[in-house]
């Protein structure tokens, strides 16, 4: 992948991000932040790449593994906690009936 096309990817990704969030009700600020935060743990892919390409280099394997741990802590925790918050909003209507 050439550097220039990666830059295009960066640009278009940023524009997409700017467009996605238009009007957010204040109610959802905290869950949205927490959800977006979980997505930023996507660096787990970089950590995985590092481990796969380490080729027996133990220090690199360890760094990759620790990095993967941090990223997954972010991802798993982030999604669970967001779900917990959002569950409280959605529970109400179903309970009424």
């Amino acid at each position, binding site marked *: 992948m050439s550097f220039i096309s990666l830059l295009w990817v960066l640009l278009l990704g940023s524009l997409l991000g700017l467009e996605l969030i*238009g009007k957010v009700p204040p109610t959802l600020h905290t869950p949205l932040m927490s959800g977006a935060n979980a997505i930023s743990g996507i660096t787990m892919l970089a950590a995985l*790449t590092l481990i796969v*390409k380490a080729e027996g280099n133990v220090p690199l*394997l360890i760094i990759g*593994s620790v990095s993967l741990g941090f990223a997954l*802590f972010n991802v798993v925790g982030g999604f669970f906690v967001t779900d917990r918050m959002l569950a409280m*909003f959605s529970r109400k209507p179903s309970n009424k009936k």
Partner: protein
Amino acid sequence: MNLPVIIKFVIDLLAVLLLALGIKGLSKVKSARDANRLAAFAMSLSVVGLLSYYLGTSGIAIQSWIWIIIGSIIGSLFGAILAKKVPMTSMPETVALFNGCGGMSSLLVALGVAIFPISGGQENFDFFKSLINEVSISVSIFVGAITFTGSIVAMAKLQGWLSTPGWTQSKVRHFVNIVFAVASLIAFFDLINGNTSSIWLLVIVSSLLGIGVTLPIGGADMPVVISLLNSYSGIAAAAAGFVVDSQLLIVAGAMVGAAGLILTQVMCKGMNRSLVSVLFGGSLSSQSTASSGSGEYTNITSCSVEECALTLEAANKVIIVPGYGLAVAQAQHTLREVTKKLEQNGIEVVYAIHPVAGRMPGHMNVLLAEADVPYEQLKEMDVVNPDFPATDVVLVLGANDVVNPQAKNDSSSPLYGMPVLDVQEARTVFVIKRGMSAGYSGIKNDLFDLPNTSMVFGDAKKVLNDLIGELKDLGVGEK
């Protein structure tokens, strides 16, 4: 193009699409929960895509599998446990902690690549390519380190483990931070010049910069800072994407970075603060010490729980203004008991939710939802403000700055211009509060001096429990 490449391409494309739909869906109440699950699914899909690609091409060594499994299990386990155990009241600091770890992960990846260059890229050495590599490694480390230390400081401050040291409020801090910033720039150029060891300097000074920038910021502005750091962790992820040549990482990181910036902007607007003043203005209280806003209270009326109960019983319409104090006292369930009694007596009860009630926008909605308060009773500020003149009793529970009339009347007040709830328009206002201490902003609240305001001193939970008892004695809600 062989098969594994095509499969990975399709999976990556699908993952980006689902992530974008996920972020979009998270901004609407109805679709939010499904959207969150969709995003989680997209993330796992991306992992499957990456692993299957390597399995199909270079293969994955047993040793690599072992380290992958160790890292995943430990990280996921701790994340899941924390997410399940943490009380709803400490949501903001939890988000900060998760966020910091995301930044740390990007930092470690870049560090790993910098110390042990990945084999395979070496066969045709290209100056331009290695420059790009070094720049992206530096950006990833710089932003990752700031995200990590900044988030940890933010978490410690919200937890109350760390207060704002006095010296950080002086102008010296700008100088110190500029020194850190310049030092990281020097380390960066040194690194490009081929001096690999300066990478450690970069790690250290950017970590210090993260601390130096976050430490002076007051508790009230912390949500904005966390949101901004969240955006940074997206940028760090995108930079890590350049390091390991992953388009998916770049797109997802850029998306989170940009979306985080917008969200930060929205939050700033809700608090009537500009991003610049949050980052460089220091905490609010330090500016206000000299202003006319501070001063002694002259006309405080204190009253007993019994009087409060009597007034409530005679009311037709009651508005509850919950604040962080309510959350701290874990009194949202007790509050619900009180309002149930009032409702059974035919009294109309509404909750007025200030956009930044609690510690983060939307935090209070989560807490009240936890206590089974019907969603329809939660009214946003703009909707509820015209109702105050027709309201008999307002109960202010642990809220302070968001009900300070200074924000409307006193142009010299640091709060001036902040949107507030016009509780003083109601016939009677009860403020349940532990003592006369000031709110987050550290500013005197003019509301407490007004003749129609009565203070009920005590812990929110205890007062509400007493209130239930008094209401019972009065026969309220006993039908």
